[in-house]
């Protein structure tokens, strides 16, 4: 089946089978909410979960991944990602996500340990075993996906799509030119964007519009189950940091990468040729989009631009409702 980059809307037109996906993230509050959403959807079948170092150290994000999986009752393998970006030292975002990387509500302890193999190996194993091509949903730095593509180039054809949170065509956040996930491991991001695999990029252009307001936290809490109250607590913690920067709500960045797979009609975007800057004084980690078509290169990413905020909040409310 030929899949152009922007026709992710047709993912489900052809099949009633759940779409196999791999969740790869650095939880992180918005990763956690993205996973709450993914786990709640019958259209998605989660094959495995992999952790990556980003928002916090690999030990902490892996532990958090285990705790989230216990909370959500996700019984799939979890593998620990690389301890640092491919060719660089880590950068963490403890100012945003706290000392644990997932500060806020109390969480259950992980039900089981991570598997012995690395994240890239577990991804490769899932890709090999899957009859259908798989969608990877990276919501942290692209270290593990970059490693997978370096180590197993022959498995590219088993990756149907990469729906990632990262980058920004018109803005950065961690530096004026770069978004955190891409800044942390620009070399891995370059490998991903040059891979030829269809990419949906949920960058800051859209994710800074995926705002959940304080009144929405209450709506989520009122759903009344345990997961709902935990998600409301995460949102409150996550909002606290953003409030100090003047945001009217919490931008739930990572959940947009999942939303693109299940509710593409509430998103708008544009096919662009995107390159990743790996060097520079100011631009390391910038995702450069060829908006004015000056490169002559064909697009390699569907870059999301806008979201129906109300529908997004409804989707999150619906997601927590799934948990009882």
């Amino acid at each position, binding site marked *: 089946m030929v899949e152009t980059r922007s026709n992710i809307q047709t993912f489900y037109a052809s099949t009633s089978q759940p779409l196999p996906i791999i969740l790869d993230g650095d939880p992180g509050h918005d990763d956690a909410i993205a996973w709450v959403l993914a786990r709640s959807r019958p259209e998605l079948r989660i094959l495995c979960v992999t952790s990556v170092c980003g928002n916090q150290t690999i030990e902490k994000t892996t532990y958090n991944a285990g705790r989230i999986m216990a909370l959500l009752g996700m019984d799939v393998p979890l593998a620990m990602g690389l301890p640092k970006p491919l060719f660089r030292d880590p950068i963490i975002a403890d100012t945003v996500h706290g000392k644990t990387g997932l500060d806020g509500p109390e969480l259950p302890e992980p039900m089981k340990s991570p598997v012995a193999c690395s994240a890239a190996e577990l991804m490769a194993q899932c890709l090999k075993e899957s009859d259908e091509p798989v969608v990877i949903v990276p919501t942290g730095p692209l270290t593990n996906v970059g490693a997978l593509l370096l180590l197993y180039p022959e498995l590219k054809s088993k990756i149907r799509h990469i729906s990632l949170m990262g980058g920004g065509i018109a803005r950065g956040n*961690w530096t004026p030119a770069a978004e955190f996930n891409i800044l942390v491991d620009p070399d891995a991001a370059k490998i991903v964007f040059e891979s030829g695999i269809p990419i949906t990029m949920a960058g800051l252009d859209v994710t800074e519009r995926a705002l959940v307001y304080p009144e929405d936290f209450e709506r989520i809490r009122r759903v009344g189950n345990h997961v709902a109250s935990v998600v409301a607590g995460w949102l409150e913690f996550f909002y606290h940091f953003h409030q100090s920067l003047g945001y009217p709500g919490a931008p739930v960045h990572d959940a947009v990468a999942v939303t693109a797979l299940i509710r593409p009609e509430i998103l708008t975007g544009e096919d662009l040729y995107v390159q990743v800057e790996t060097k520079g004084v100011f631009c390391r980690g910038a995702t*450069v989009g060829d908006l004015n078509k*000056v490169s002559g290169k064909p697009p390699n990413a569907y870059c999301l631009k806008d979201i129906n905020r109300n529908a997004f909040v409804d989707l999150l409310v619906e997601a927590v409702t799934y948990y009882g």
Partner: protein
Amino acid sequence: MTDIKMKPSAEKRSIPLFIDCDTGVDDAMALLCAAKMKSFDLIGVAAVAGNVALDKTLPNTLNVLALAGRTDVPVYKGAYKPLVRPLVSAPHVHGLNGLGGVELDSSPRKEEPEPAWDALYNAAMEHEDLVLVAVGPLTNVAKAFIKYRELPKRLSKIVIMGGAAVGGNTTPCTEFNIVTDPEAADVVFNSGVPIVMCGLDVTLKAYLTGTELDELAKLGTPQAIFSYQSQQNALRYEMSKGLPGICLHDPAALFFAEDETMFTARKAGIRVETRGSITSGKTVTDLDSDKKMSYREHRVVLDINRDAFRERIFTLMRKYSET
């Protein structure tokens, strides 16, 4: 013309204006417009290598000013190449001679003996309220800042055409003037002088359609006919890139310097990437990022009232039929 309200009751003193340019078809339009502005006293124009080489931009500058009837304006010779990079010019847009192939009569005036950077410095020392409009690569301005360290304190208003907060026209993220000499541009943005950046964010909206350019030609003056003819090649080029007409990048910067009311601008920090693998020449702004730069006194021009812009072009160009 007889409307009494149009005449200022007390003669307002014109503000001294220095233009640095790489003439260039849209530079030529800016010069033709500046030559007729009452609010400005055009005290000097410097040429720099950019759209085409200096051996063309210098005579083009002299000859366009002569066409404008302004042989009273001194012209200075600037840098023949960017600070540390070779010159990559844009004859595919501006034509081999920089004026879309139109040959102008040679000006009777020659360039002044002092170089552009000395002339800019002298002008700033002489006129406290000097306005600098720089619409080419920023090599001359950077050289002035490098040579005269007290110059930033004397130059309080600089409007440039260059850069872009988002997008590019030469590479996906760079604009021609800045990518031609990124080091010079960073010297200027890092000089401590607040810069108004009239870049592609606004200048891609500051265009005349082909029809409007036809109307301009109908004014019938040599200046209007020159404007029409010199811009045909650039018009074809820009239309081929999907633009709605011919962008008058440089007049937009000049008009901002004259009257901000037709524009929207936002304060920002701006620096220029000089060492990227694909981003050298990108004007990095902190407009929408959480992380802000330490110096945030620059302004990024983002929007324009195109009707007012077009009217201003026509008003100024009509003045050539009044004499």
